[in-house]
């Protein structure tokens, strides 16, 4: 009887421990799952520095270009020389919010 009374708490303790461990493992698994998007973010953040950075700087001559507008008219940067300042706004249509 005495042996039994010591064995019961011991068994209870062990099963409690097992349950706790199981939960810990599960929550560990869950958090790993939850981390996936965060991991993806880290990857995209890691890719950002590889985005091309222009070597052109203030004081450099702007490379000339001749491009076609939506009306089929040719537009040349050098056409504005001596007449107007020009702001070149490069955008990505697929990613643009506007």
């Amino acid at each position, binding site marked *: 009887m005495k042996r039994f009374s010591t064995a019961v708490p011991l068994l209870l303790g062990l099963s409690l421990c097992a349950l706790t461990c199981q939960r810990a493992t599960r929550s560990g698994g869950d958090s790993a799952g939850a981390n996936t998007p965060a991991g993806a973010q880290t990857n995209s953040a890691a890719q950002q520095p590889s985005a091309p950075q*222009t070597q052109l700087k203030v004081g450099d001559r702007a490379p000339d270009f001749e491009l076609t507008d939506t009306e089929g008219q040719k537009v040349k940067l050098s056409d504005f020389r*001596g007449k107007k300042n020009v702001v070149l706004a*490069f955008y990505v249509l697929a990613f643009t919010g*506007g």
Partner: protein
Amino acid sequence: MKAYQADIAKFEQTNTQVLGISVDSFAANRRFKEDIGATFPLLSDFKRKTVRDYGIYDEEGGYGTRATFTVDKEGVIRHVEQGKDAIDPTGAYQSCRAL
């Protein structure tokens, strides 16, 4: 681009021509121009030559990244912005005002 259109009168007051440039097709740009009601030209750099010349072409993605260059009347670059900062035209406008 919408933000540039909203501020277009301010740019005109500083004797500045705004040119939107993307590697998208002529047709896609035309649709976009209509959608946002842009009154300034949207140029198609479908050959990717200009984005390469300006060093903003992402070879892997096949597109030019977002960037803004202010060029003065002598053809000299007076202001450069790249990435998210280039969405807001404030920096470009201030550089034009200073010219």
